[in-house]
């Protein structure tokens, strides 16, 4: 299952990942070889088998929809992580 360069570029676009030109061929090889390996899953008949999304068997674990807020220390640490800020506002390039 050999992917094409175009398919690699498409995946990179979907995932918002910058890829340098010289990396594309290497990823094409490596990802294709992994896909070849995992294709063995097709050997087993799984008709009628339920997929397992998670192994705990837990369902509908919920809590009350109540706002607790955070302490000022936590809030400051959070805001200090912003790469560019204007007061308490996060600065980003124009969205529209």
């Amino acid at each position, binding site marked *: 299952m050999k992917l094409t360069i175009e398919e690699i570029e498409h995946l990179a676009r979907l995932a918002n990942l910058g890829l340098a030109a010289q990396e594309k061929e290497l*990823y094409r090889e*490596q990802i294709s070889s992994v896909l070849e390996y995992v294709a063995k899953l097709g050997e087993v008949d799984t008709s009628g088998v339920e997929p397992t999304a998670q192994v705990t068997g837990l369902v509908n674990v919920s809590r009350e929809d109540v706002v607790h807020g955070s302490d000022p220390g936590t809030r400051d640490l959070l805001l200090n992580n912003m790469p560019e800020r204007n007061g308490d506002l996060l600065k980003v390039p124009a969205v529209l």
Partner: protein
Amino acid sequence: MNNTPMTIIDAHEGLLQKRFSSRELVQGCLDRIAQANGKIHAFLEVFEDDALAMANAADRSIARGEELPLLAGIPIAMKDNVLIQGKKASAASKILEPYSASYDAFVTTKLRQAGAVFIGRTNMDEFAMGSSTENSAYGPTRNPWNTEKVPGGSSGGSAAAVASEMALAALGSDTGGSVRQPAALCGIVGLKPTYGRVSRSGLMAMASSFDQIGPLATTVADAKILFDAIAGKDEKDATTMEPPTSFSPLHRRGESKRGDPLSGLRIGVPKEYFIAGMDPGVEQAVRSAIDVFRKLGATITDVSLPHTDYGLAVYYVAQPAEVSANLARYDGIRYGARQAGKKLQDVYVESRGKGIGPEARRRIMLGTYVLSSGYYDAYYRKALQMRTLVRHDFDRVFESVDILLTPTSPSVAWNIGEKFSDPLTMYLSDIFTVSANVAGVPGISVPCGFSDGLPVGLQLMARSFGEETLFAAAGEYEKATEWHTKHPPHSP
């Protein structure tokens, strides 16, 4: 800390008897780090001042004659993907180089409550993706037993720190083997708990249905102490649960003969785990261990887990799929390293392209592919169906045996750089560990010998919530052998 590595239990007794202080204990680790970390590179950052402050707090508590929890004053190393409030945490990635944690992980809070001392954050494969710690954006960690070799991964820094006595124990994370495999390659104990036993709140998510935080330590008893301290239901992690009340921990059937510590214990050896291509030295050490278990009174049976061969394929479809979702948040917008861009799209693409390393990008793309329209059913849905079959294999086999015994890794530590260029070869080194994550069952690796001077690890697996059975079996094996007393020479 010269001959046998000091254990948490030894240290606790020493503190109680006032033979030494927590400050001296912590300073001993700091001295050891100053001596060896330059070469071994287990730590990305050492919390020198804070560690001594935490040690002083423990010493004041001791002086006041307060009741001392087992972990009070004990230096613990924390993997770089576990949040400690106010401390940098980067998952060994460049995209999180400027990031500081705004809150404590659940396990961090639990260890704080127990009085533990955080000595530093340890190196790892970036975003926990890798089996050698060579994928760290900050340089590899070296195996303390032979510094030309890898320590394993992704918790290689934690394993190396414990093996070289830079900390008395450590926390790591295990998604496909990342606690057990480095423990095996570094000659120490590593536990992956039952999925759901330890909260993932404050652990940077890699693959959410596989991730578990687990302890690395020099003895089984120490690993249990850490596990007991961090396990528990957490309202911030909806996948956590306490063991069901109907479950009886020391699950043994059969008659107990007096004098045989493990009589009544039924051990299954799955034939699919003894494959061609495994290091003969590894196989030999594990088979010798089986003899020890036999002498301890356990019954050994050959069993089969027919879908073992597919476990790795399930893992390398479902895990990258979850990775692609979990790493979407690293976009340079709210936190982390942001690359400038004229348009918003450019910020995403440049920040992620420059800040996320090759292995993580590889897995993001793989995950994107298997989840994409047209391929979702053939790959992702298929993998989840196979996951059910793998899980059933384990459910079935645990009806007739109590624990499974396998090698942890098909080989001992390899040379840095040797497997790096072929990802698939690297993935194959997880072949014995992934099934436990796929099925959600607990697994522990304990040292069981050496091959070519390098440690060999033995893996025991139990049914979900069977940690106590693992500790009992592994503990008796440890008592009957001396592997846990070995440690690498002090000058790397």
